């Protein structure tokens, strides 16, 4: 086991992918000599060269569009979108081209393109640097949408995403980039107990289930710790993937606990939590002791950074939802 940050673990996973498959290449803005604005690609340009770690022009649609062309030629491009708020120029290429090429070619064409997106808030950034647009992509058939919450998952999931035959939106919780964890660098992503798209029980409990992914998993674990001190046993499910959604694992948990709170940074309105609540209500209606509650962003543009900690679903708001669910 090695102690790595999430950023370091993803870096190690990218390095492993570049080493094991000559068709893998990285493309993005400032990912070369600089190593990316978050240094996730640090050292890779030096070791693999500019043909495989490509500094692209400042054009997100161009990055994804040329990645599609490279994939058509047999490459496995891993694109970095510098910040969540800058993915929108590429939205057309992702949704009208990347997501449906396999479908419209009746399975003849695979586009194994990974799009890495640092996302989420809490880092004191200016506008467009703290967004959580994952639901937009989960709503698009043909894409896989995943988000690692730990360094161990960052290392494994980026490699699983790269070997996936389908396009993958890989959302990296940038506020957790410097969180450390144990990583087994000898682990084989193909042999990992959890494949891409499978949820993981991050903490076992009996009274209530918190469903979280990416940046809110750590918040959920803190909430579970705090609730335990007050006698409430919380189970935390790290969804790891929004598309597909591992409803089976989550529903099995909620059937045991009878209560479910969903936590994400994205606005609650029409967010992933709405889909999860609907599915859990349908699957667990007779086991539920309380309505499924959601904790997340408000239906406002991401606020100024001086207010972001009031906006974000922090420990207190998660515990408030736990209290409300437990009151039923």
């Amino acid at each position, binding site marked *: 086991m090695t102690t790595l940050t999430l950023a370091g673990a993803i870096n190690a996973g990218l390095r492993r992918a570049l080493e094991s498959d000559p068709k893998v290449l990285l493309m993005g803005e400032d990912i070369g000599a600089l190593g990316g604005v978050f240094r996730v690609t640090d050292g890779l340009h030096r070791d693999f060269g500019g043909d495989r770690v490509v500094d692209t022009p400042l*054009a997100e649609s161009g990055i994804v*569009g040329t990645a599609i062309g490279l994939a058509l030629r047999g490459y496995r491009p891993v694109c970095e979108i510098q910040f969540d708020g800058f993915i929108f120029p590429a939205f057309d290429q992702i949704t009208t081209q990347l997501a449906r090429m396999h479908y419209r070619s009746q*399975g003849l064409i695979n586009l194994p393109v990974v799009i890495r997106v640092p996302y989420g808030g809490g880092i004191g950034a200016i506008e467009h640097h703290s967004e959580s647009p994952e639901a937009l992509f989960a709503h698009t058939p043909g894409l896989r949408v995943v988000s690692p919450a730990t360094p161990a998952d960052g290392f494994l999931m980026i490699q699983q995403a790269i070997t996936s035959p389908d396009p993958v939106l890989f959302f990296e919780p940038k506020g957790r980039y410097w969180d450390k964890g144990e990583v087994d660098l000898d682990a084989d992503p193909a042999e990992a107990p959890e494949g891409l798209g499978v949820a993981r029980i991050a903490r076992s409990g009996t009274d209530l289930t918190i469903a979280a992914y990416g940046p809110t998993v750590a918040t959920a674990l803190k909430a579970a710790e705090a609730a335990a001190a007050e006698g409430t046993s919380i189970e935390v499910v790290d969804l790891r993937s929004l598309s597909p959604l591992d409803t089976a694992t989550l529903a099995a948990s909620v059937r045991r606990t009878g209560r479910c709170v969903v936590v994400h940074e994205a606005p609650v309105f029409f967010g992933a939590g709405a889909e999860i609540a609907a599915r859990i209500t349908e699957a667990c209606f007779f086991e539920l002791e309380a309505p499924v509650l959601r904790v997340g962003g408000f239906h406002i543009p991401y606020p100024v950074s001086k207010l972001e900690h009031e906006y974000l679903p922090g420990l207190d708001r998660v515990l408030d939802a736990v209290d409300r669910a437990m009151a039923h």
Partner: protein
Amino acid sequence: MSQQAQIDDTDLVQLLTPTGQRVDHPDYTPRIAHLDAAALRGMYRDMVMTRRFDSEATALQRQGELGLWAQSLGQEGAQVGSGRAAAPRDMIFPAYREHGVAFTRGLELTKILRQFRGIDHGGWDPKDHNFHLYTLVVGSHTLHATGYAMGLQRDGVVGTGDPDRDTATMVYFGDGATSQGDTSEALVFAAVNNAPVVFFCQNNQWAISEPTSRQSRVPLYHRGSGFGIPSLRVDGNDVLACYAVTSEALERARSGGGPTFIEAYTYRMGAHTTSDDPTRYRSAAEEQYWRDRDPIERLRVLLVAEDAADDAWFAELDAEAAAYGEHIRSTVRAFERPATMSMFSDVYAGPHAIVDDERAWFEAYQRTFADTSATTGVH
């Protein structure tokens, strides 16, 4: 008649006038010197067959056999000339009106009609003829062609000095697509990577109802120059000139010389699609102006003048085209409706719990409508 819809012959490369006379060009005449009578007849045949296909498809739409049709009428010279200049190993990215290019690639054209009949989204394997599926989101595929060209560079099949190995891509788009951001981004990526891609813009003067003056205040081929890409304008209704400039551009791309932007100045003789009504925005006089510059007729004049084809050959071609028309009609009418459950196929290459669950549910739901005898044995 609007001024912009006439030929602006500034810097226009032309090797065959509208009345079928050859024109000498110091750079481009040598590029067609090897085209003998058989080659010229071949080009003529491609254009005639393409036009027949196009008119049959238009009629089939009118008869309700197709949901929609996008005509290539009038653009056969640009498409056949450029298409014939490409090598089989070159990868072609069409927009959605490149039926003539498809014909030169050897694609069975009725496969295109599956898309317009609504039974699939593109009925051919792009690898079979190195001819990608039609792209309907205007300009998007300029980036795909550029990325593919970047892949060719990494594969070491550009600038090797072996003309049988070097490979390029060519992407077709229209005047309207030049306004799309993706097209500009493709020019940026192609230029800075020196990618082996030919941007073949068919300026057919109309983006549905909007004339080219609504897209640009400079000639479209100037677009390429601004990105540092060699650019030129060719008479798009001159199949010989289109062949010459495209063969030069592809040769440059394959040999490592980078991208080229070609503006083929042509005219969309038909409607944008069968849903369009050009009488609302352009004049009959303008259409007549361009009918007098037809790409097929001018080559016919040349073939006759140079004794490259006789009456018997033309009659034989007419018969071949008529038979082709019958083949198209019977093929389209025989296309079968896809199976309902096929809509769930190939959304993902791997398993996906949501799609898999929905498919299973819908399959069971469909079964509830089956009659009792049909459901016997179904669990």
